[in-house]
């Protein structure tokens, strides 16, 4: 026993204040050992530390001499004696002392022992502490009964027998030790169980299966699991962009009680922004939370918010919110902190993976044509689908370019391999083939040249299949050469489907002596060619022939329009089996007729007249296959006559023009010639013939004269003769 401590307890400030002094002293200086150290550590009753193994014995007597006597008797026990001189001091000491047994004098000046015992009994923390009453009157039965009623476990009559008292106290000290040990064991067991449960919970939130998910799926899965595990009502993950001072809500689960979709949190601003920028996991109550988003009925009662940190960098924030009066506890926060460490790593991994993947995909898409060349008679559409397996961005490509004489070159290819190298090789092949095509090489020769480039520059191991077609709408042919590429499908105008035969040839990069040669096939109006890469038709554990058959079936019920046909083919051939390879599809259709009307504006000079006539003739040649040559002649004549009038009577400005517009309307050509002049039908040899001729050869003629110009609108059917029933037709000549 520390004598000075006992002396202090007898000073004017009392024992408790001495204890407090000790505590304050200890804040700055570590305990030197002995009883002082035991005081500070008494709260850690269950630790196995040697000093703190001592238990507390509280002595309460308003006579200091009695206290000294008690201390003398009990000192040999080697325990921690706490001496107090009143019930009040005793109660205060009990507030922060762990005590095994209390020796309490029944008769004290102010608060007596019985009263003090009742208060000790009424406090949960001290209810279990055995109390030995010290009484001077052994005969006072009533007092003893009261003492027991107040919670005494024993009583000792003064003057007490030191050995007896020491023995009694030591029994309670041992009992206390045993009890403490039991508590320690059960706590340890509970702690072990908690740890095991935590590990299980952590695994639920972030098990290995999540490692293979893409970011969005990963977030959805994590939030779902966390919401269930924590019995939360709402959950969300905010993620930041590199160098950004904001976090954006990336995924949510449950009702958006906290943040509306698309919300952003600025680092350092608001409760969430502050705890994120300070990397401080936080448990927030309703009062500390921002109001719910507009239109959301209901608020959160409790919120866990934990910053997500990966590789030492803040990458985002995860939160869980509870309603219905549920309050999260400190242990929930601890668990979420542990989970967040793992979640952050998983998210970081998925993000890095997605970024790398996106780069390759961007590279690849940049190598595909932004738009396919427009052509008056050919409709083109194409699709590129990256591989269903994200890691395998491949080397599929397609291209189309205008060649001389309204012809179009169409290419599709597949580089064996994936990733950045395949994508860049694809760019080289594409540019090379473009150059050979523009130089005018036919498909076979172009592929032979390309093979030489592959062999010479790309080195061994780079293998590519390429299909090159030249479509000639005028000639109605398609010239095709293939280097090991799947044959394109031909959907004929009559609905039949076949695969366009190509001369067999190895892929590029295999055999320097391999020489692609071309074949010419008819390509008629209404025919559609479908070019594709093997990702479309190839499935694991299945013959490629089955895939070709699926394509054939898909084309047997084709969709209208090439864009729709592309989608139709992808949907029906791939179905529910996203390709393991990337897929490119290019569709080209030879139209029955050009869609657009004829438009032309020319200077109002005589030389423009034959030009207008010739252009119209060219347009008439493609506008409808069924037009009679006589109708073409008549329309040329009508066009020239109207243009001649415009040229002769162009009283407008010096740089006057006239315009032509023609289109196919209801089985007839409607031709309009509009000028800026103001002329009248003339009679006589010079001027009258023109309109007379127009009237003779057209079904109808309308002339609109306005101050700013004159418009002649002529209609002529597609047959050999004009429609004679028309009122404006007229066989008589002028004058």
């Amino acid at each position, binding site marked *: 026993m520390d004598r000075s401590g006992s002396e202090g307890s007898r000073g004017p400030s009392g024992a408790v204040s001495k204890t407090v002094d000790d505590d304050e002293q200890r804040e700055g200086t570590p305990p030197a050992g002995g009883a002082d150290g035991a005081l500070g550590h008494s709260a850690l009753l269950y630790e196995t530390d040697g000093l703190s193994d001592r238990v507390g014995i509280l002595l309460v007597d308003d006579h200091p001499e009695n206290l000294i006597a008690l201390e003398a008797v009990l000192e040999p026990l080697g325990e921690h004696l706490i001496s107090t001189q009143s019930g009040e001091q005793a109660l205060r000491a009990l507030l922060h002392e762990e005590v095994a047994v209390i020796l309490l004098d029944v008769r004290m000046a102010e608060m007596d022992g019985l009263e003090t015992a009742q208060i000790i009994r009424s406090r949960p923390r001290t209810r279990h502490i055995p109390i030995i009453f010290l009484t001077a009157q052994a005969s006072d039965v009533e007092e003893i009964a009261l003492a027991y009623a107040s919670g005494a476990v024993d009583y000792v009559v003064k003057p007490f027998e030191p050995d007896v008292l020491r023995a009694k106290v030591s029994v309670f000290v041992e009992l206390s030790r045993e009890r403490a040990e039991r508590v320690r064991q059960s706590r340890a067991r509970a702690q072990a169980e908690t740890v095991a449960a935590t590990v299980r919970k952590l695994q639920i939130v972030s098990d290995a299966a999540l490692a293979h998910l893409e970011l969005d799926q990963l977030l959805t899965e994590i939030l779902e699991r966390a919401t269930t595990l924590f019995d939360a009502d709402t959950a969300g993950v905010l993620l930041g962009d590199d160098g950004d001072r904001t976090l954006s809500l990336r995924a949510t689960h449950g009702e958006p009680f906290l943040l509306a979709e698309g919300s952003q949190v600025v680092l350092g601003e608001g409760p969430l922004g502050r705890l994120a920028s300070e990397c401080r996991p936080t448990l927030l109550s309703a009062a500390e939370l921002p109001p719910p988003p507009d239109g959301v009925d209901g608020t959160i009662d409790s919120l866990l918010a934990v910053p997500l940190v990966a590789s030492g960098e803040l990458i985002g924030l995860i939160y869980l919110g509870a309603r219905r009066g549920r309050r999260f506890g400190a242990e929930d926060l601890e668990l979420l902190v542990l989970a967040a460490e793992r979640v952050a790593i998983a998210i970081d991994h998925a993000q890095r993976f997605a970024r790398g993947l996106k780069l390759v995909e961007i590279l690849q898409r940049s190598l595909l044509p932004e738009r396919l060349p427009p052509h008056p008679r050919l409709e083109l559409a194409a699709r590129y689908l990256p591989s269903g397996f994200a890691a395998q961005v491949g080397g599929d490509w397609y291209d189309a370019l205008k060649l001389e004489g309204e012809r179009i070159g169409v290419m599709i290819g597949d580089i064996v391999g994936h990733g950045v190298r395949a994508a860049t090789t694809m760019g080289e092949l594409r540019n090379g083939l473009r150059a050979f095509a523009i130089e005018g090489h036919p498909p076979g020769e172009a592929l032979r040249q390309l093979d030489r480039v592959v062999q010479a520059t790309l080195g061994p191991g780079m293998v590519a299949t390429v299909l090159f077609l030249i479509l000639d709408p005028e000639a109605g042919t398609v010239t095709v050469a293939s280097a090991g590429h799947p044959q394109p499908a031909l959907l004929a105008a009559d609905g039949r489907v076949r695969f366009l035969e190509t001369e067999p040839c190895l892929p590029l990069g295999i055999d320097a002596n391999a020489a692609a040669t071309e074949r010419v096939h008819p390509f008629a109006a209404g025919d559609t060619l479908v070019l594709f890469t093997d990702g479309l038709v190839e499935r694991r554990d299945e013959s490629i022939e089955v895939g070709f058959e699926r394509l054939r079936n898909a084309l047997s019920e084709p969709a209208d329009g090439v864009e729709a046909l592309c989608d139709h083919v992808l949907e029906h051939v791939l179905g529910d089996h996203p390709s393991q390879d990337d897929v490119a599809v290019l569709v080209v259709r030879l139209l029955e007729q050009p869609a657009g009307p004829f438009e032309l504006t020319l200077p109002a000079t005589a030389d423009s007249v034959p030009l207008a006539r010739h252009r119209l003739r060219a347009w008439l040649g493609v506008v409808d296959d069924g037009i009679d040559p006589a109708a073409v002649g008549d329309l040329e004549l009508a066009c020239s006559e109207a243009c001649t009038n415009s040229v002769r009577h162009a009283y407008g400005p010096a740089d006057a023009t006239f315009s032509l517009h023609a289109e196919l309307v209801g089985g007839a050509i409607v031709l309009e010639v509009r000028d800026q002049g103001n002329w009248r039908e003339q009679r006589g040899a010079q001027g009258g013939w023109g309109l007379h001729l127009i009237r003779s050869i057209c079904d109808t003629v309308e002339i609109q004269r306005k101050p700013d110009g004159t418009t002649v609108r002529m209609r002529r059917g597609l047959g050999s003769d004009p429609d004679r029933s028309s009122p404006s037709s007229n066989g008589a*000549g002028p004058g």
Partner: protein
Amino acid sequence: MDRLASVSRHEQGGVSIASIGGEIDVSNVAQLGHELTEIPNHALGLVVDLTGVQYLDSAGISLLYELHLRLDRRGQVLVVVAPPAAAPRRVLELTAFNTRALLADDVPSAVATIRETGESRAHNEA
């Protein structure tokens, strides 16, 4: 710009023959007019052969009609040759050119027509 039409000339038994190939419209009608009116005074008449013409419109009709009037004043005869299947034939008929001037199916009959007309004129004058 390429010439839209070309003219080649020769004489046959006192008849001047101008064969035109190409297209005749407002853009070249003036030029053609100059070439066609250069006809020798001694000739009985002019055959304008449109067999090789793919396109003719009112500008060409006007040219031919003016040519007809000019030659007629000089006592010379114009005969236009347009085979029934040729492109100009339809326009010539639609404008009733044959009711104002002479139209023949081929060059020999055109030449014959001019000779007959010339002889009858000479006979009348005598």
